[in-house]
């Protein structure tokens, strides 16, 4: 079955959506992501949707849900690279995703996560304890 890969970068997770997002795939991602966060104890999730061109209210709600679920598991979610047309569509659908943090691209998204959570690498915990 088709899956969206979830990459582990230290204590953060990186999800890049590069295929057409259909409903089952979205639900699968939701399952996988919550599982990974719990398993690896991740503190940040970065979802890159720069190649996503079509959204509907379901995908919008899924993004909001993922962010809410991650928060319950003590992880921050940042959605990056939303295209103008997608943003306009979501606003017209009345979805402001008020619980989701956003950034322009992966770089500034990582920066934001770093700012929010500090420890990017697992080693950094040692550094903090040494200091």
């Amino acid at each position: 079955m088709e899956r969206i890969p979830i990459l582990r970068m230290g204590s953060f997770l990186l999800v890049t959506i590069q295929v057409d997002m259909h409903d089952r795939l979205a639900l699968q991602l939701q399952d996988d992501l919550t599982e990974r966060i719990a398993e690896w104890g991740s503190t940040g999730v970065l979802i890159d949707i720069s190649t996503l061109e079509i959204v509907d209210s379901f995908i919008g709600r899924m993004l909001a849900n993922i962010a809410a679920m991650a928060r319950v598991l003590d992880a921050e979610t940042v959605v990056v690279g939303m295209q103008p047309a997608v943003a306009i569509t979501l606003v017209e659908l009345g979805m402001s995703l008020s619980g989701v943090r956003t950034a322009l691209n992966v770089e500034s998204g990582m920066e934001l996560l770093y700012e929010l959570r500090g420890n990017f690498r697992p080693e950094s915990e040692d550094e903090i304890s040494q200091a």
Partner: protein
Amino acid sequence: MSKLPEIIRRHEDQIRSSWLKEVNNAVRRTDLMSDKEFQIQGRELLASIAEGAESGDVSHLDGKAWNHARELLTSISATRASQGFKPSETATFVLSLKQPLFQSVRKELSGSPDAMFEELWNTTLLIDKLALITTDAFLATREQLIIRQQQEMMELSTPVVKLWEGILALPIIGTLDSARTQVIMENLLGAIVQTNSRVAIIDITGVPTVDTLVAQHLLKTVTAARLMGAECIISGVRPQIAQTIVHLGIDLGQITTKAKLADAFALALQKSGRSVIRNSNGTAPVAAPKKTETPRGE
């Protein structure tokens, strides 16, 4: 069967000359139109009316027989609208045809009052309808002009300017309606992607009034920008507008608002980790030109 076509054909020359004389007296605009041009128009129009009346129904001008007359009138009317004629002057051009036609009908049918009355009625219907076509065409031309100007205004009035690395400004001038908001939103979001900007300042100094609809449009734009990862600051809120916003009970939510564009710019600089300092000699205030992005929170 109407006798009008026959009457027109028989008295064509006479009708034309007295019609043109009539128009000359009423609404001749030598400043807008040459004599020769005017003569040609009159002749062509009368010929097309005679043609229509001959082969078609006088009281229904939708038919094929009247195509030529309708097209001619529409084009004359459109030309006049762009030349600067008044609507009444253009309508009078057609309505002046009434008297010459009446005279001809009277001359022809003076023997039988009943027939004469019927023909007069037909003539009145015909001329009125022609005049209405003229007015419609005139207004349509004006309408097109207005639409074109609106489009031009929309394109002119939504520039997105880059104030600094990562800071955009969007000065809005004029009333915000749905169509304009759409254009503004698209421009702004496009510019955010292009310039990789984190802060966008929407300046509403040039927006005359803010009602619930305008506020809603602003909120939409700000939300869309936020979804893409840029923060919006609304500046140029005049005291009256602040009062209106509160009186109308509009909730601007989490959006930062500033009274002046300068304040918003200062905030934007601060948010991106920059500051403006004054040189030690105190003569030339210079912004600290930091080319490299300093990560926030450091």
